[in-house]
Structure formats: C-alpha cells, structure tokens
C-alpha cells in the first residue's frame, strides 16, 4: 500500500514534467506491472483533459480597466492619507505664522489640582498644554475623565484652535489647506467653496497634492457641483495620464450627463493639443460608444476615435 502511495505521488509530477529521468524510469517500470496505479494515472489524465476543455476564464479588458480605475481612486486616497509623522513634519516645516492655521485637533492631557492648584509632578507636556488653555482660548470638546488620586485628577480632551489663513492661491500652504478641505469636510458647501476658490481664479497653479485631491473628488464626491468644479480646475491643469484617467472615469461612470459632456470635451481638447489617445483610451471610448445614452457624448467619442484613425 505504502509502495503504491509512493508511486501515486509521482503521477501528477509525471504529467507536469517534473520528474527526473531516474524517477520517470522507476515509475514506468512500476506502471507496467501495476493496474491500480495505471488506472489512477488514467483518471488524472482525464481530469487534465476536462480542465483543458474548460480553461479558467481570463479577465476581460473592461475588467482590467475598471480595476485600474478603482485602484487609481484608492491610490489617490492613500497619497492624501500621509502618515501622522509626515503631517507633523509638514506642519512644523511651515512658517510659524501658518502653524495655527492647520487647525490642529490634539488630544492633550490636563491635570488639575483642585485644592492646591498643583499640576501632576513631572508631567511637563501636561503643564505646557495646561498653560495654553486660558491664554489661547482653545475650544475644548470630548472631555474624558482618566482617573484621580487624592486631590489630583487627570482629564483628557480634544482642543481645536480656529484660525484664519490669508495667502496667495498659489502658495503651497493655502493649497494644502484647500486640499484637506476638499477631502475631509463633510459639508458639501465647504467642499464646493474650496474647489470654487481654485476654479474662480484662472491664475491658480495646481500643486500635486491639490491635483490628487481634485481627482479623487471628481471620482467619488456625491455632490454634482463639487465634481463639476473639480473637473473645471483639472481641465486647466497640465494634460497627463492622471487627468486623462480621471476624464475617462467620468465619461464611463458619472451619472450626470453634463459632466460626461464636459469630460469628453476635455478629452477632445487634449487630443487637439497633441496628447494623442493611446489604445487604452480608445478602448474606453469604444465602450462609451456602446453604453452611452447621451448622443453628444457618443458623437464626440466617435470623433476622437476617427481622428486617431486618420492620424
């Protein structure tokens, strides 16, 4: 029995060409006198035949394109979700006048000696933040009771400093704050005003981080107005692969026909200005031709494809 097992373990390897010459010879000799193992080999061959007749389906081009687009969105989110330390370095690297503008929400510890007015001995950080409280007028939320002993008590809270920032639209500091407003605000009005401040200013130069935020918003924001403003700003930025992918995403996925029209026009403009569509773009446009309800988008997609054929 154990002897059969030894040879039967060799059978799949034989079919995959993974046996050495010596092993092949040994197996061949055994099979010539062993019906049981020969039958087993025949069955495995039948299995391979069945699997060969029904090969695993391969991902379609459409699936690959969709996967790439979803990944691009995830990647943008990842790029904007910088590690805490990176954000801290970024914060510290700003000129001091800007530092409060970040609106830092920090969980700080506060120790208060109720009777003696004493602070917890040795807690330097605690003392530093405790001094901030009356002088800076921090807005305190989410106060938690940590513990206490005798007349000492320890609390934790979040503090927010509301700050105004004034600067040129092209300054990196202003754009960083705008990018975070676009990304992080739950209020559509805030997001709209943040993007609008860029679209309203034709001189605005788009920093990479802002561009990444706009592309993410273009693909994921639920508010049509925010997506529209983001599209307007991106159409003014340098034509590159990221912008092209964003426009294609809108053409193929956005539910708003006005945005799809703006995006297909943007793709046409990119072509006119010399950014020729590659095979991936053409495939996406053909998909749009097949699925698009809006006649203008279809006509425009057809015209880009035909234009490329001519060239």
């Amino acid at each position, binding site marked *: 029995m154990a002897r059969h097992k030894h040879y039967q373990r060799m059978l799949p390897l034989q079919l995959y060409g993974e046996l050495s010459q010596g092993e092949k010879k040994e197996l061949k000799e055994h099979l010539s006198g062993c019906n049981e193992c020969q039958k087993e080999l025949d069955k495995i061959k039948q299995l391979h*035949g069945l699997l060969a007749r029904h090969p695993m389906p391969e991902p*379609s081009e459409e*699936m690959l394109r969709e996967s790439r687009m979803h990944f691009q969105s995830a990647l943008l989110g990842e790029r904007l979700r910088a590690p805490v330390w990176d954000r801290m370095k970024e914060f510290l690297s700003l000129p001091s006048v800007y530092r409060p503008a970040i609106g830092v929400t920090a969980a700080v510890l506060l120790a208060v000696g109720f009777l003696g007015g004493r602070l917890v001995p040795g807690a330097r950080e605690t003392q530093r933040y405790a001094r901030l409280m009356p002088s800076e007028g921090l807005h305190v939320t989410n106060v938690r009771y940590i513990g206490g002993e005798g007349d000492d008590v320890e609390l934790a809270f979040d503090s927010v400093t509301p700050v105004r920032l004034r600067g040129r639209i092209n300054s990196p500091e202003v754009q960083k704050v705008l990018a975070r407003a676009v990304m992080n605000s739950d209020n559509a009005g805030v997001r709209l005003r943040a993007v609008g401040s860029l679209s309203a200013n034709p001189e605005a130069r788009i920093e990479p981080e802002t561009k990444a935020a706009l592309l993410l918003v273009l693909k994921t924001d639920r508010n049509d107005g925010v997506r529209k403003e983001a599209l307007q700003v991106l159409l003014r930025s340098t034509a590159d692969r990221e912008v092209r992918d964003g426009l294609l995403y809108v053409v193929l996925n956005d539910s708003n026909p006005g945005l799809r029209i703006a995006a297909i026009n943007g793709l046409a403009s990119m072509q006119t200005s010399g950014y020729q569509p590659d095979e991936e773009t053409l495939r996406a446009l053909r998909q749009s031709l097949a699925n698009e309800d809006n006649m203008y988008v279809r006509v425009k997609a057809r015209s880009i494809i035909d234009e490329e054929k001519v060239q």
Partner: protein
Amino acid sequence: MSADNDLILKARDGDMTAFSELLHRHDRNVLALAAQYVDNAEEAKDIFQEVLIRVYKGLPRFQFRSEFGTWVHRITVNVCLSHRRRVNKGIHVSLDQAGEENHAMQQLQSKEQGPDHAAIDADTAWHIHNALQTLSPRQRMVFTLRHYQGHSLKEIAGILRCTDGTVKRYLFTATQKMREQLEGIF
C-alpha cells in the same frame, strides 16, 4: 528588466506617470492570478487593488534583489492567501449576492463556444469551481500556479517560501481532491 528599474527609481522620486507605466507592465498578471484564484470578478478586483496599494507602499523598500515582476507576483500570492482566509472566516453569500456574483462573473471572459454547448459548459464550469473550493488556500494556490499559470515546482516553492517537497505534497493532495470531486463528469 532594467527598464523596470528605471521606472522604479523615477516612481520612488514621486513620478506617478512612471509608477503607472510600471504597474501597467505587470498588473494584468496580478488580475489574472487573482481571478483564477478566487474565480469571482469582484473579489479579484479587491485583491488587485490591495496588491497594488501594497506595491505602492512597499516600493521605497524594494531592494532589487529579485525582479520587480517576481516581487509583485509574491505579493499577489500573499494577498490571495490572506484574502481567502478572510473570506473563510465567516462571510456567507446570500442568494442575492450569488446573483450579483453571477453578474460579476460575466466580466471574466471564457473562450467563445457555440450556443448549444453553453448550458453544459456552464454546468461543468460550476462543478470545477466547486471542486476548487474544496481545496485549502495553499493547495488551491499551488494548483493554480502549477496548472493554470505554468510555474515550475521550484518557482512555486520560491514564491511560497517553502520546500519543493511541501509543494509536491500540496499538488498531490489538490490533484487527488479534484479527481475525486470531478470523477463523475469526466
């Protein structure tokens, strides 16, 4: 592969166009393996995304000790294996979800067949799919890499960081199980 290395260096410097180009050279293989392993379009897309995010995060630490494609392949295998573990931990598919999965499966294209064979093919494909589900994650991965992707046992051992003997054992057990499950429809 030196062209890969140029793109890696540029991508590390923040050139996202180079990063995109680098991925476009390899991401088709990522999706193919994911799709063969999970046999479900939506899960394959999830795996694809997770693999490429890991590549993005790991690129600064890539040390050129292996080909970039091999590195990506290894990440794909690891994500597939951990994905399977997650799914096995208790996600149950409802009938509605099963309908959605069938829809998603349409994104996986089979070789063209005549309409007369469609029903039989779908039935056989279903049996094969079920047979693959009976394999453990590692058995299935070894079987996928050897049978569908054509990797040698030595390569698989390298990808899974185990011995040739272990790979042979997985392959044998996987073949046995597949044979037993599908014996009735040979």
